[in-house]
């Protein structure tokens, strides 16, 4: 498995997108921290950008990468290599390099300017988000054979998680404002990893103005400590389930 991961990471490094992504994140986070007068505020601004960019880059890059490695996958599947090993190596290579890029690009500036529990939570969540969206990308690309369709699905998923979902939440909220829907909304908020990540960091920051509806419900129901733990667990599940599903699908896939 190590050998295959080595080749995948070498290949990812050779195409310069991940490098560019790192530099881009680095420029953004450094300029934000230098623009804002307090680093706490800087962290908040950075959070909003990170929540948009990290999922987008992770899901689109991974989907395209998997489609472009079709030859590599085909070549290795006919060799004495376990399919599971191959798929998990692809996942590890992608998740590893994107998380590393995030750590260098956003993590190090955060550690420099705002070395606190909140800052570290933010780094961990960013890395988790990278991993989650790599897993979702793997699932999207293993389910659809057609490359254009697969990339389209990946972009739609990102759009859903970062924009459409909020609209849906508001819609449900207004439609059912006469009913006690709080508990139901907790279940709904678990359906979106980006929202959960935001809730997790903001609970840690303790700026309740920024919580948003799902966040407020979360805080109300679980309190800060439990809210953080529960959302952390659900986030991990968001990484594990798509990966397991895609692995099962890949094991039966005809190449």
């Amino acid at each position: 498995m190590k050998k295959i991961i080595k080749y995948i990471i070498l290949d990812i490094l050779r195409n310069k997108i991940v490098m560019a992504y790192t530099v881009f994140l680095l420029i953004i986070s450094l300029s934000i921290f230098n623009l804002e007068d307090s680093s706490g505020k800087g962290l908040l601004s950075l959070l909003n950008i990170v929540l948009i960019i990290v999922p987008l880059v992770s899901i689109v890059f991974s989907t395209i990468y998997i489609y472009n490695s079709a030859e590599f996958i085909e070549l290795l599947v006919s060799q004495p290599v376990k399919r599971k090993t191959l798929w998990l190596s692809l996942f590890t290579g992608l998740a590893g390099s994107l998380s590393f890029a995030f750590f260098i690009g956003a993590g190090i500036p955060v550690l420099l300017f705002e070395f606190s529990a909140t800052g570290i939570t933010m780094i961990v969540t960013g890395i988790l988000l990278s991993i989650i969206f790599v897993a979702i990308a793997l699932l999207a690309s293993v389910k659809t054979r057609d490359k254009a369709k697969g990339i389209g699905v990946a972009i739609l998923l990102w759009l859903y998680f970062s924009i459409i979902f909020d609209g849906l939440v508001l819609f449900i909220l207004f439609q059912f404002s006469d009913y006690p829907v709080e508990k139901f909304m907790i279940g709904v908020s678990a359906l979106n990893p980006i929202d959960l990540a935001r809730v997790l960091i903001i609970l840690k920051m303790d700026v309740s103005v920024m919580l948003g509806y799902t966040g407020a419900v979360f805080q109300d129901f679980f309190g800060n400590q439990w809210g953080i733990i529960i959302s952390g667990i659900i986030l991990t599940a968001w990484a594990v389930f798509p990966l397991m599903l895609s692995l099962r699908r890949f094991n039966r896939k005809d190449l």
Partner: protein
Amino acid sequence: MIIATNVSKSFGKLKVLDNISATCNRSQCIALIGPNGSGKTTFIKCLLGMVVPDSGFITFNDKNIIHDWQYRANIGYMPQIGRYPDNMTIAQVLDMMKDIRKSKDQQLDEDLINEFNLNMLMNKRMSTLSGGTRQKVSASLAFLFNPDVLILDEPTAGLDPVAAEILKEKITAEKKKGKLILITSHILSDLEDMITEIIYMQEGGLRFHKSFEELRADTGEQKLSRAIARVMQKN
């Protein structure tokens, strides 16, 4: 050595393999013959575990291949259309395969690399290679690890006459070492002097599996191409 039992596979509504059973043994050289779209490549991919059959099973040395992957260490596979990562050079592909596949006490068989003069092209990227050179790389990879079983899908298609001759000689030499060789080809004259058995497939079904001698006796023809033409006419 390889036993397929009632293997069936459909892609959507299209039935590509229909209840195929076949037994392949050591030191046989088997030709898989059939019209385009008769399921030859799909059958080969089933043997390699690249396509998972809907029903039926395949055993390799008495072990079911469905959850096994180590058996592929004994197989050298040359695909019909070799697809390789575009941005790797020939040398990198060969090194990667050696790195992933080689065990310590294994002897590498680099005859084909030398005879095809691939050493001159080692630093060329796979995307810049011509179809024939790709075939040469595929063939070299199939023979590189001295496997017990060679599965060659249209090995001579796209090769120039000199290279095709080199490959045919190599196949004959390996056959003499007692290896099992499975070949599909439409160029029947290429197969003429090396095969011992024939599997004839049509529309996903296995029409017959005979030794070459038997086929000659049944059809009364000496040449493979004539014998197969007879069979096709009868159907």
